[in-house]
């Protein structure tokens, strides 16, 4: 019986206008998105090649990841060249994109955005009339007048509906991925494939949440038009309102100075040190030693400033996650960008790596004395997070939020349907 319901649901969806329009929309959008972001990746690689040649000692630059084609996240900022300075770390050159502010005005149309915003809406549109719509047409009453159990009907509807919704998504993503992998300019290794697989899996879980939610709303209403209006408003709240308002609300609890203020504080330290340096008489026999001591103290003071700032940012991310925990969109954004190596966790890791590199050089120069101005300096090396790192950096908790919301909404739909008045 379950198979018959699934088959019926898939067939009725396949023949509907809704299926045609949503499939066309999602397929075009996914393919256009991958194509556009692929072009963007090639531009970023060109820029990286130029900047890498220019990079000097005590500096670092990492290449853009091909996975940024699917989830751009913070990759533009991660791939800027930086250099260690007396106090803190500075950006030595911006990307070309910084000259065109429209990039900042509008969101990157990557696959993550398409899934998070547009496909979540499509998932709700697929499910909003699954129960209330059938009630209106009278087919639900007819179906239940037979020896068909309600749990089987709702499970069959969910499986059939979600399968017909997710299949075009898989096909479009597969086509896009084949296009990207066939390109000689993109080098995707085994680790990247695993990450891409995890990203698609998390996307399916995320879309299932909205599908279950649409089904739940449909089970709570008796007219499909009411169900549609409620679905749209719930979607707006979950996808835009909670994540975007929640983050700015979190900033009100954790006071973060602007990057400009941090920069000025660094400058303040530098100027004070320059002044103190001039106070040391050059004729003193221990001039060099005192100078080094002063420089060392300055570096540590700057590090303290950076550490404090980074700790505040970490706290902000945690508070923000707590506030926005009700919505699947922030959890999915953080999880997807972390999986693809373009998220907050990757950024935190890169900063830590830059700090470790700085500490290493400082130790060689000021403590061990094995490094001087003329000797060749060790280079900065960096590898993006592995799958294991991602899961330990908070990926697991975000995945759990998504699974939990899925279970919650599906259980809600199940219970609501058991009590649903089909007359």
């Amino acid at each position: 019986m379950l198979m018959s319901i699934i088959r019926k649901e898939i067939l009725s969806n396949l023949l509907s206008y809704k299926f045609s329009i949503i499939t066309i929309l999602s397929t075009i959008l996914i393919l256009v998105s991958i194509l556009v972001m692929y072009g963007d990746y090639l531009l970023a690689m060109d820029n990286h090649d130029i900047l890498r040649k220019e990079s000097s000692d005590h500096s670092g630059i990492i290449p853009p990841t091909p996975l940024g084609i699917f989830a751009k996240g913070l990759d533009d900022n991660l791939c800027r060249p930086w250099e260690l300075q007396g106090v803190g770390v500075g950006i030595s050159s911006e990307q070309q994109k910084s000259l065109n502010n429209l990039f900042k005005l509008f969101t990157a149309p990557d696959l993550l955005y398409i899934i998070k915003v547009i496909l979540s809406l499509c998932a709700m549109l697929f499910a909003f009339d699954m129960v209330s719509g059938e009630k209106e047409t009278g087919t639900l009453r007819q179906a239940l007048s037979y020896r068909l159990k309600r749990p089987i009907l709702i499970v069959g509807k969910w499986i059939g509906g979600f399968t017909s919704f997710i299949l075009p998504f898989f096909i479009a993503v597969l086509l896009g991925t084949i296009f990207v992998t066939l390109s000689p300019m993109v080098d995707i290794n085994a680790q990247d494939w695993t990450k891409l697989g995890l990203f698609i899996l998390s996307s399916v879980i995320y879309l299932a949440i909205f599908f279950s939610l649409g089904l739940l709303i449909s089970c709570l209403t008796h007219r499909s038009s009411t169900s549609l209006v409620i679905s749209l408003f719930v979607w707006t709240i979950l996808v835009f309102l909670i994540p975007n308002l929640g983050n700015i609300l979190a900033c009100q609890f954790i006071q973060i100075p602007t990057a400009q203020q941090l920069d000025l504080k660094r400058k303040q330290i530098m100027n004070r040190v320059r002044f103190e340096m001039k106070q040391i008489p050059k004729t003193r026999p221990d001039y060099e030693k005192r100078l080094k001591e002063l420089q060392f103290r300055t570096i540590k003071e700057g590090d303290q400033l950076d550490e404090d700032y980074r700790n505040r940012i970490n706290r902000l991310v945690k508070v923000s996650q707590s506030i926005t925990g009700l919505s699947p969109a922030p959890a999915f954004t953080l999880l997807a960008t972390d999986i693809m190596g373009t998220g907050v966790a990757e950024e935190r890791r890169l900063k830590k790596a830059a700090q470790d590199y700085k500490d290493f050089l400082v130790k060689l120069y000021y403590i061990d004395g094995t490094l001087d101005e003329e000797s060749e300096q060790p280079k900065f090396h960096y590898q993006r997070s592995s799958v294991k790192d991602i899961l330990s950096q908070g990926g697991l908790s975000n995945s759990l939020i998504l699974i939990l919301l899925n279970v919650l909404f599906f259980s809600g739909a199940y219970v609501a349907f058991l009590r649903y008045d089909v007359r």
Partner: protein
Amino acid sequence: MLRTIIAKEFLNNILNLRFMIGLVLCLIVTVACIMILAHDYRQQMNDYNARMNIQDEIVDNYAKADHHRVFNLLRPQKPPERFRPLIIGIPGNESSGFFDYNPLPILFPPLDFLFIVTIIMSLLAMLFSYDAIAGERQSGTLRLMISNSISRTKLLFGKFIGGTASLLIPFILALLVGVLYVSVNPVIQWDGSAWVELALLTAASITFITLFYLLGLMISTFSKYSAISILNCLFIWVLLILVIPNICPYISAQFCRIPSIKEAERRDNEIERHSIEVARKLMNEAVKEFKLKYSKLFSEFESMEFGGIAAFFVFGRDVDPKYQKAAQQRAEEEPEFKAMMNAFRQKEEKARDELMRIRRANPFLDDLHRKAALQTNLAKNLACISPFANFVYIARELTGTGLRSPDYFEQVKDEYDDQLHSYLDKKIQEAKEKNPELDEESFLDVSDRPRLVFKEEPFKDKLGAVLPYWGILVLFNVVFFAAAFAGFMRYDVR
């Protein structure tokens, strides 16, 4: 009859569930948004004041008697935009140029008044109008109405006016509550021009909202069933709001490529170095020539560091004012010295012209900025297909949070730099008169320096910038209404 239709449409809408949901959502979101953003504005003001204090502390304690060093210490700080309690500046701008920054606004763009209008109100507008015609046809009331002596034109006008009026109630109410909060908040000080800008922003928002109502109405007149109408509406809404504006910058980046900034800067530095080399060579040749021609007299002139810019090319340093003064005095007293000095000045001019010619011929940085402007303009114009982009330009330019605001701040900074230059010239001159030993390493008290006072861009300029985009929005309104009219005239009401 028109009034009856308007009243019927109005009452029908406000008794509907979508009106209640829309009203509650608008009120809650607008008030929550303005309250949070007003608090954020206060924090940003504190941050700005903290920055100013740090800057003052640096400049007051470590300024040297050298223009370059003072300018290095003094970076004009921009205060938070006065409309920040409503609209936040371009997200991601803060991270520009800094290794440490807050990454959250990039992943989750902050929610503000723009979001309320562009997402909530546009969606609500379409939900109000998608079944205005198709829905009435399905329920059979349209047939009944048309069977009376009522023209289709009046019916469509009535539906448009009644529907728009009911749609604007949640928006206007929410905005009024928000504005009331802003006006009683002591931290937010808006002058007359700010209120005028707010009025224009409201008018632009209404133009945008009616556009989406008309779009929904148009789609409804081309659909037989409301279920199909809503799907088409949402399809177009997704394209216009969520897809087209976001894709345009990336498409324009493929067509108009910008060269690497670092590469352009490197080449620019090379050209600058080359221009100095050429000027130095010319001056060294001139020095040789003058030594032969004037021997002792020129040696004396050389000991005064040539009393002009040649000192920079030959010795690599700026001329000391005391030598400049001495050379001038000698030239006034001795005609032969004057003739030699004037001849040498001509050579100097020639070297400087050559230097400027080489620098002016530098194509790299100009090319970079020209291509960047071209790419931005292409993306901006492409995005105009979407009413969303047009409205964003209008709202941001009116409130000083748009694409032109960084350029305007640069202009304000340039004016301030000129002021500071004149101030420093005078200050250094005075300090040197008091202390002839003063050099570039000496401390200079600049505590009485002019301060940067940020003034909003003139209202006329803002209005000039937004009118073309507003025109496009009005045009969209007219086109959608005309299409809805044409569709309804041929609509089969059975």
